[in-house]
């Protein structure tokens, strides 16, 4: 184990950085997508609801590994041959799109459920006091909804962070992909996977602690 750390420690640390980079860029776009589709699904507009529903169903219905192959290989191929464009996607770009879509679909559901969990009377009361729909949403409904959403969102963040390992199949040099190389070079399987497991554990524990702090802050005004 020490031998692995000696020869490959720096490489594994760099891979951990790549894992974080991929996870954070994926999560950033996932939040945007999640908000858009989450709001679309609660609007009182059938067309918007249907669009959001299709997005969630399609992405949720495809395993991420299939999505990864499709986006990395299929998407550029389709664009280049059908639309006559000249696109190449790097593994990081493809990985970010893949995580953003996948996590975005789940976030949309979390946001939808969060908003719908706020009693409808809250919206009715705000509207009857003369607040326009968007203002009522922003000032009355969302602040209450976010509190219920936070634990699920944190959970989804952690799942997404771990899902970056799936993107090892498209050659992105994150932890699992790099670990496989170390195993292949040294033929030391368990030792390498123990190190990698501990690395994930450390990142995720730190992330959970930070999230707990954030949750406490947001709940301060709660009675």
């Amino acid at each position, binding site marked *: 184990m020490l*031998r692995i750390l000696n020869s490959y420690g720096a490489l594994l640390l760099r891979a951990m950085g790549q894992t974080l980079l991929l996870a954070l860029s994926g999560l950033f776009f996932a939040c945007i997508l999640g908000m858009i589709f989450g709001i679309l699904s609660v609007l009182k507009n059938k067309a918007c609801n249907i669009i959001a529903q299709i997005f969630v169903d399609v992405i949720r219905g495809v395993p991420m590994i299939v999505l990864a*192959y499709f986006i*990395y*290989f299929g998407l*550029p*191929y389709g664009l280049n041959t059908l639309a006559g464009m000249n696109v*190449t*996607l*790097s*593994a990081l770009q493809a990985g970010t799109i893949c995580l953003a879509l996948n996590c975005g679909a789940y976030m949309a559901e979390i946001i939808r459920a969060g908003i719908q969990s706020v009693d409808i009377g809250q919206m009715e009361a705000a509207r009857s006091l003369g607040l326009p729909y968007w203002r009522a949403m922003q000032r009355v409904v969302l602040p209450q909804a976010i509190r219920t959403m936070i634990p699920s969102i944190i959970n989804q963040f952690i799942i997404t962070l771990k899902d970056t390992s799936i993107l*090892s*199949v*498209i*050659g992105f*040099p994150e932890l699992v*992909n*790099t670990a*496989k*190389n170390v*195993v*292949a*070079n*040294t*033929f*030391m*399987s*368990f030792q390498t*996977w123990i190190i990698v497991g501990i690395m994930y554990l450390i990142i995720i524990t730190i992330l959970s602690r930070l999230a707990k702090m954030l949750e406490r802050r947001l709940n301060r005004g709660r009675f």
Partner: protein
Amino acid sequence: MKKMMAMLLTGVMISSMALPVLAEDEAKHFTIATDTVFKPFEYTDTNGDFVGIDVDILAAIAEDQGFTYDLNSLGWDSAIAACQAKQADGMIAGASITDERKESGWIFSDGYFNATQSMTVKDDSDIAGFEDLEGKTVGVKTGTQGASYAESLKDEYGFEITYFEDSPTMYQAVVGGQVVSCFEDTPIMASSIQDGGLPLKVLEDTANDGAPYGFAVFNEEGQELIDLFNAGLADIVENGTYEEIVAKYLGEDTAAASAAAMKGDAE
């Protein structure tokens, strides 16, 4: 009555302990792990049969040495782990014999195939040699000799490496333009390009000196299996079975050269 029961039980216990030992004397049985797709060393053909040079060589050696085995197609990473965990007695997966692997406690058989590695590019690519790789990204397959070869050239020519898990994905990435070229064993690339009708070409003058493939076990307990493998390998090289097997997958020329090299090694 109680005594008889006790005797009977003891008898059953003793015989059940003795049975596996007896069976082992009749025909030794091993579990061997291998990769899923490493064409033409192991792959599933159009009939759904698991075939390849590794598969056939192992079958020929087992027949020659009179042992039986189960071949588990676990995948490269899992095959390594399976040997460490003693879920498998050995692995045959086109694994190159390297010092770094030996230092980790693995024991390799004699080399059973000697391959050179070279670089392949898209058939309409401008890249003619390593000099054209500056700032570009190349693809390799995790744990292969092609990967080591690319790593050894990386700094000198200033290119990046992307690691793929299997050969089909790696070739796909070259065809799709995600990487500009890939490194793998010359005969394997030639056969894959031909069989798959891939729009790729091997750059002949990029080949290195090559390294032999070996059958591997994790520790001394596997020495017996290594001995059987080596003895069987020598026999099938001698009686021509080896050449037949290689010819079936890589053509007569490669087979003759490979067999000649193996005989040269033995002397």
